[in-house]
Every structure is written in C-alpha cells, then in structure tokens.
C-alpha cells in the first residue's frame, strides 16, 4: 500500500506540474499577444476592423502602406495596460515563489503564497479585460464591422485558468 500510495502521489505531483506549466505558458502567450504585436502573420489584436488592427499599445494598418501608430494616452487605456503588466508580474512571482516554497516548506505545508499570487494575477487579467470591454470606445471609434480579436479572447480564457491553478496551489500539500 505504501508503494501504491507513493506512486499515486508521484503521479499526482507530475499532474500538478503539467497543469502549472500549461497555465504559465498560456498566460504568457496571452500577455504576449495582448502587449505587443510584432509578427503580422499571427493575429494578435484586441480589436479588428477590416484591415485596421488595434491592440493595447499601437494601432496598425495592414493595408498597402503598412504603418503603426502609438495608441492614445487615455487614462482607461493606461489602466488596462497596467492591469496586464501587473498580471504578468504576479504570475511570474508566483512561479518563482512556488520553487522557493518547494524547498523551504515543511512537510504537509500548503503553498498559500503561490496560490494567492496566482489568484491575484487572474483577478488582474479579469479587471483589465472588463475595463477594456466597457471603455474601448473612449479611444477607438467603433464602426459596424469592428470585432474583438484573438488576444481579447485569450485574455478572458486566462482568467479561469489562473483561478483554477491558484485554487489548486492552495489545496496542494507538500510531500517529502
């Protein structure tokens, strides 16, 4: 029974690690999409309108004169940018703290700090996406065929993932 339990706990441990890695990678990709649009081939926009693509940091035209202009310095846009940056910072911090706690926590202890930071990162992404949804007409005139882009959807996807991984960290107990 001891060996089975050990195997079971080892499997569970690796499942937690896989979950953690996938959550971090997905969030990183979301924020990479949300923050900078470098390659035009991958759709990385928050708002799409024909051949104009606008994201948090610049508006680009993929038409014949390809040009990118910096976004306006509206306060609401700046707060959305701040929320995205904060969520990246918190998720990176939670990853770092996870490894710290892995080596310093006593047996049977819980990864509270890691889970708290992960949940905070999820909340930041949610508030950023919510503010964007409500206030995007302040700095971007919406026309009829303006639709939400890939990065916007990814931002909303990151919320349940972050919350789930945070809760998992809080429930998780350290084994030897």
């Amino acid at each position, binding site marked *: 029974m*001891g060996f089975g*339990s050990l195997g079971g706990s080892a499997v569970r441990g690796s499942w937690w690690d896989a979950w953690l890695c996938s959550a971090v990678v997905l969030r990183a990709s979301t924020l990479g999409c949300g923050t900078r649009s470098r390659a035009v081939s991958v759709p990385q926009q928050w708002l799409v309108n024909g051949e104009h693509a606008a994201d948090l940091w610049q508006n680009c035209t993929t038409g014949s004169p390809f040009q990118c202009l910096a976004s306006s310095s509206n306060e609401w846009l*700046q*707060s959305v*940018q*701040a929320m995205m940056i*904060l969520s990246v*910072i918190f998720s990176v911090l939670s990853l770092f703290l996870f490894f710290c706690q892995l080596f310093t926590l006593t047996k049977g202890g819980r990864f509270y700090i890691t889970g708290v930071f992960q949940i905070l990162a999820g909340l930041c992404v949610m508030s950023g996406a919510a503010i964007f949804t409500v206030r995007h007409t302040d700095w971007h005139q919406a026309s009829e065929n303006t639709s939400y882009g890939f990065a916007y959807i990814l931002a909303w996807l990151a919320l349940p993932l972050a919350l789930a991984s945070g809760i998992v960290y809080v429930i998780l107990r350290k084994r030897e």
Partner: protein
Amino acid sequence: MSPRATRRLLLVAGLVAALGVSPVSPIHVYTQREVYGTVGSSVTLSCSFWSSEWISEDISITWHFQAEGSRDSISIFHFAKGQPYIDDVGTFKERMEWAGNPRRRDGSIVIHGLEPSDNGTFTCDVKNPPDIVGKSSQVTLYVLEKVPPRYGVVLGSVIGGALLLVAALVALAYGSRYCWRRRQAALQRRLSAMEKGKLQRSGKDGSKRSRQVSAERGGGHGGLSPLSPRPPGSPGAAGEAPLSPQAPVLYAMLDHGRSAKKAKGGAGDSRKDRK
C-alpha cells in the same frame, strides 16, 4: 605738433571714423516657441528684445495673430510713442492686456478667457529707430479642452500602488506570524524554566513531595491527570507562595496543550498509516 601727438590724434580719428562707419547690429526679438493653455484660463505671451541702440521714444512693438488654418495675419496690438493700443473691435476685444515695459526690454501681452478659436500663431515685432533691421519672433498657442496627463502617470501609479499594497500585506502576514511564533517560544521557555525551578525546590523539601510532584507532572504529561490543578493552600506550595496564583493556570495550559497535541498527533499517525 610733435610726432607722438600727431600719432595719437590719428589714432583717435581712426577710432571715431570706425565707429561712425560700422553697421548697427540688428534687433533681436525673443519669444517662447509653444504655449499651452486650457479653455477659459489666462495665458501670458512674453516677448523680450535686445537692441544695440538706446531705447527711444519712437520704439514700436506690434503683435500679429494668424489663426490656425488661416492665411491672414491680423494686427491685434500696437505700441507707439509710449502709448499701447489694444484691440477693441476684433476677436480679442476686452480680453487682452498690456503687460510689458519697453524700458525693461519687455513687450508681453496677456490674453484672458481663452477660447478654442485662439489656436494659432502670434508674432511679436519690435522696431527701435534707427535699429529697425531684425527678425520678428513667433509663438504658437495651443488651447486644450483639459490638460491631458503625461503618458505613463496613470500606468506607473497603478502598477506601483498595487505592488506596494501586495508587498505591505505579505510583510504584515509574515510579521504577525513571526511575532506569534516568538511569543510561543518565549512562553515555552518560561514554562520549562518554571518546571525546573519547581523540581529543584521540591527536591529540597523532601523526596516524598518530589515524588508527588513528579507523579502529578507525569499525570499531566499523559494528558489524563487525575489530580486537577493544585489548590494554592497545599503544603507543597509553601515555598512557592508568590508563584502560586500563576501555577494552577500554567498547569492547566500545559495539560491542555500536551493533551491536545497528543490527540492531533494520534489522528495524524493513523492517517499516515492509512496512506
């Protein structure tokens, strides 16, 4: 005349001739490049000049205004013969004020109650006869609905505030946990010191009492002490009168703590076995 005197006279004559023939340097006019103002506020358009000639009574200062998108430049202010002439029929009627002093080489004007139509270029022109050659200087006025905050103020303040808040909360949590642990450790130390002191004292009294005390303590360690906290008036407590009010309380705590830990430990062991 002596040769030295002649030479001196020639030198002076040459200097005077040179002064008389040298050209007068042009007049220099200085203004700001851009001025920002919000709607309804007042703004000062400063104009200073430098002239190599003495400031005479014939000095004239002129301000022209060219609206944004317009090609006409209208004259809005004129200063001549020591008298300022302010626009009283045009767009700056009753909004302009002369705030300059030609003696101090200042030709500034103040515009009150800015309107969005005041966006444009203002030109300051100074003529100080005979010093009339010179370039005039231009100021661009921007009238804004409200002054926009510099980019990055909101961004930086939100990020900084959130990080500080989180850092403060984490520090508070860890600090309170550290204090609590330290207080627990101090309490443990006091308890063990008190136990040691009791053992020594009861050892001095007699072996019987020491056995009694150790039996009590043994019962206390087991968590099922048949002897409840000793009453203060008992014979064994003769030498511990000052401590007696505390002793029963500490005993109770010790018993409770030990028994509680034993219970939790037992349950945990059983859980571990099941695993």
